[in-house]
């Protein structure tokens, strides 16, 4: 059973495991959209030269923080897969609490980045980026939620 779940998760992160870092969720997106995330953002935002300098500095800072959160999320899913067959109520609570904390961290990062970008570029620019980023993040979430089974969905006693 553990193998089946891990296989499902590996399918989601198939591209990720081929990439340099095997814990980068964005690699998953890269396979779906056929271009790097940075390229997507660049094509979409159409920044002027002056905006560019400020924007990419904030973006890089954001990406570094987001990648850390992404790693935590993957670790949490791996933890779920490793404990799936014998999931106790205690473990379920631990995993869910981690999941809530990770979501909270991501929400805070989005808000912090929005504020900073609003100030240094403009609220419209910041809103564009936040919407795009929200879309990318949600695509990843949907893929993950689609791939992982519900607690007890597979009868492991069979």
């Amino acid at each position: 059973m553990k193998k089946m779940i891990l296989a499902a998760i590996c399918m989601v992160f198939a591209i990720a495991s081929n990439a340099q870092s095997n814990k980068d969720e964005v690699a998953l997106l890269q396979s779906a959209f056929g271009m790097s995330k940075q390229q997507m953002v660049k094509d979409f935002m159409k920044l002027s030269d002056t905006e560019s300098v400020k924007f990419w500095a904030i973006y890089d800072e954001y990406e570094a923080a987001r990648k850390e959160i992404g790693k935590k999320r993957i670790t949490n899913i791996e933890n779920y897969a490793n404990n799936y067959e014998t999931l106790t109520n205690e473990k379920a609570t631990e995993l869910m609490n981690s999941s809530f904390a990770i979501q909270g961290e991501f929400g805070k990062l989005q808000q912090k980045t929005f504020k900073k970008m609003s100030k240094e570029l403009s609220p419209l620019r910041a809103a564009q980026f936040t919407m795009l980023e929200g879309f990318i993040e949600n695509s990843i979430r949907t893929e993950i939620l689609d791939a992982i089974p519900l607690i007890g969905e597979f009868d492991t006693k069979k």
Partner: protein
Amino acid sequence: MKKIVLFAICTVFALVTKAQTNTEELRYLQSVFGMEKKQVVAERIKLSQAESAKFWSLYEEYELYRSEISDRRAENIQQYAKNYTNLSEAKAEEILKNTFEINDELAKLWQKTYKTMAKELSAKIAGQFTYLEMYFEAIGRQKLAEIIPNIGKNEPIKK
């Protein structure tokens, strides 16, 4: 499961973006979505008779709050739709701040419901329920992103 709820979600969100949609129509669609969602939850979470009564009473309470949050979101999206072609800096800021608040509220509601459900039923059932709710939310947002264009994309809002 995706297919079961997809239609309901599409209809709700497509209409949300129509600025002229009246509240009554929206409420009706939300209730259709709510019913379909309830059916999926009932199918996926296996409950004993004793668990059933507790679960559904907590579910109804949760739905009450969730639908309030949904209404606020619908209102925020309508604001965006109305102002989309000529979005000012101030309006963009206001709409994004509302979005953050709405997302936070939903996250808080999930955590609160998870705690209560874990205490009154079990952490496993609470986990199953939270997972399903997160999934509905993710699909909903996905559909929303397909309907609503980003700022400056100069695309008409798909109705």
